[in-house]
């Protein structure tokens, strides 16, 4: 060829390769290469409430954490098990009403009723979703979207569970800092827990179910069983958020089934980077505060919100985390062909 041709080569950084092995433990530089990003995330989330200027913004952090849990559950289901879930609202609502009943009827304190509501709510959600689990395709998305709409009407029409007023008089946390850090610790716990889970054997089966469920069946495993486990874990995260929300507002009502809880996690996942698990949490930490900041624009808020989302999808469709990880682990250079 007479003209010189070049292409950009992408290579793993040396430090990444070195720190892949056990030798990483022998040098501070490689140790910090491994742990620094995680530390930044953990410390960043932990000190976030401390640096917030007002009670209002501390409350926003709590809401962000709820959305982070929902995004995590969406990412787990959509990108590791292959179930597109629009069930955020369903999980939040079930969790909220369960904890409300446990708290007001049985008088359990928040720190007991929330874990109980998480487990009971997750069982309820899983049982509700069980019929569509053996199938693949849009069924799961539709069912998860329909349940909250259905439950709203049922509660309204039968005037049960407080009817349109919702259940009031739910106990709040005794301490403001307990309230704040409970949910933050839960987000971190679930984030690192799920990251671990998807790399265990069961996580591999989850991914196999996503890729080719027929092959999984042919290997002698029941896809319904594995999907049930995944849905249980994901709905537990959602119900935890819902239960916490009920105690935060001291109220569980029909707005727990709001569609926001289903849609925003998807947006957060797209922005953060699908299938990275950290990305969706980060996406929630970006999107929810932005949405709060835009309140200044009044009715134009949704317009700006949509524009920001659009910008992300057009210019960074891979997601922040995918981009960030690539930049962190790899470098590029021009090479002659």
């Amino acid at each position, binding site marked *: *060829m007479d003209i010189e*041709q070049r*292409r950009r080569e*992408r290579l793993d950084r040396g430090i990444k390769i070195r720190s892949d092995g056990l030798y990483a433990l022998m040098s501070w530089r490689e140790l910090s290469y491994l742990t620094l990003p995680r530390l930044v995330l953990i410390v960043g989330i932990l000190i976030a409430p401390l640096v917030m200027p007002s009670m209002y913004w501390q409350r926003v952090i709590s809401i962000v954490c709820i959305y982070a849990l929902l995004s995590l559950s969406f990412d787990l289901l959509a990108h590791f098990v292959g179930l597109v879930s629009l069930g955020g609202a369903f999980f939040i609502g079930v969790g909220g009403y369960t904890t409300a009943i446990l708290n007001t009827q049985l008088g359990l304190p928040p720190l007991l009723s929330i874990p109980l509501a998480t487990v009971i709510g997750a069982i309820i959600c899983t049982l509700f979703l069980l019929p569509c689990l053996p199938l693949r395709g849009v069924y799961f998305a539709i069912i998860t979207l329909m349940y909250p709409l259905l439950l709203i009407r049922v509660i309204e029409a039968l005037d049960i569970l407080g009817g349109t007023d919702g259940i009031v008089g739910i106990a709040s946390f005794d301490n403001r800092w307990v309230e704040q850090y409970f949910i933050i610790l839960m987000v971190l716990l679930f984030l690192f827990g799920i990251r671990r889970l998807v790399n265990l054997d069961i996580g591999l089966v989850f991914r196999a179910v996503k890729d080719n469920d027929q092959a999984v069946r042919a290997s002698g495993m029941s896809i319904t069983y594995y999907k049930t486990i995944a849905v249980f874990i994901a709905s537990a995260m959602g119900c935890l958020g819902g239960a916490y929300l009920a105690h935060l507002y001291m109220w569980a009502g029909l707005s727990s089934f709001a569609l926001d809880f289903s849609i925003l996690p998807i947006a957060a996942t797209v922005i953060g980077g699908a299938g990275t698990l950290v990305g969706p949490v980060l996406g929630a930490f970006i999107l929810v505060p932005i949405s709060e900041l835009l309140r200044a624009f009044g009715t134009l808020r949704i317009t700006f919100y949509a524009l920001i989302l659009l910008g992300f999808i057009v210019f960074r469709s*891979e997601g922040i985390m995918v981009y960030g990880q690539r930049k962190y682990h790899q470098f590029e250079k021009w090479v002659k*062909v």
Partner: protein
Amino acid sequence: MLEAKGLMVFYENMLALNNVSIKCAENQIVGVFGANSAGKSTLMYTLSGIIEDIRKKEEMAGGERISVLGKIQYLGQDITDVKPSRRAKRGIVLCPERRRIFKECSVIENLRIGGYLASPSQANETLEYVFRVFPALEKLKKRVGGFLSGGEQQMLAIGRALMAQPKLLLLDEPLLGLSPLVQALLVRATREIRDEKGISIIVTEQYARPVLPIVDYAFILENGAAVLEGTHDELMNNPDVRSAYFGI
């Protein structure tokens, strides 16, 4: 008719095509032979332009970076940067590997979709022609594509490609997983298409023996590089080629 010079394709840092130059003259059947991972499919994607589409999707998803280098000349024009849809309009039509027919459409619908670029009269004419070349398809007109047998699906895929009024037809492993009888039928049909319609054809295959009789000129790919080329007779007389690719 088609001339590609110095094609190089990288999937990230893996070299899939290494400086491959390939030529196809008017009204010729050109064979491209090679083992798995020799780069046959990549070559087909590059010639048809589908590689641009793959590259864009990978880039959007933050996956592998695909670099394509080299020049492709078609009918005297440089089409290196032409989009796959425009290439199809100019007459380079790919019949992809593993058929990729529209599984939920019936046979006739599949063919009609393929005829999107053709005028109604051309489409009807080609439809008749397809049914003449592949009489088996006519009886299955209303059958849903996904329920056809492998051989019928391959006939349908070739028929669909023909409906787009190709001047240059790219057949990517048309004999994949078919019985010798069906293979012979398809090979015969391929020659018929060339003879009657005057369409140039580039066909890739792993096992050269069934296709070789109809091939005018052939290239042999190994690990992404074109190691040998020649006319039918030249290759037949090369002992290495005979043992490796023709099993004689």
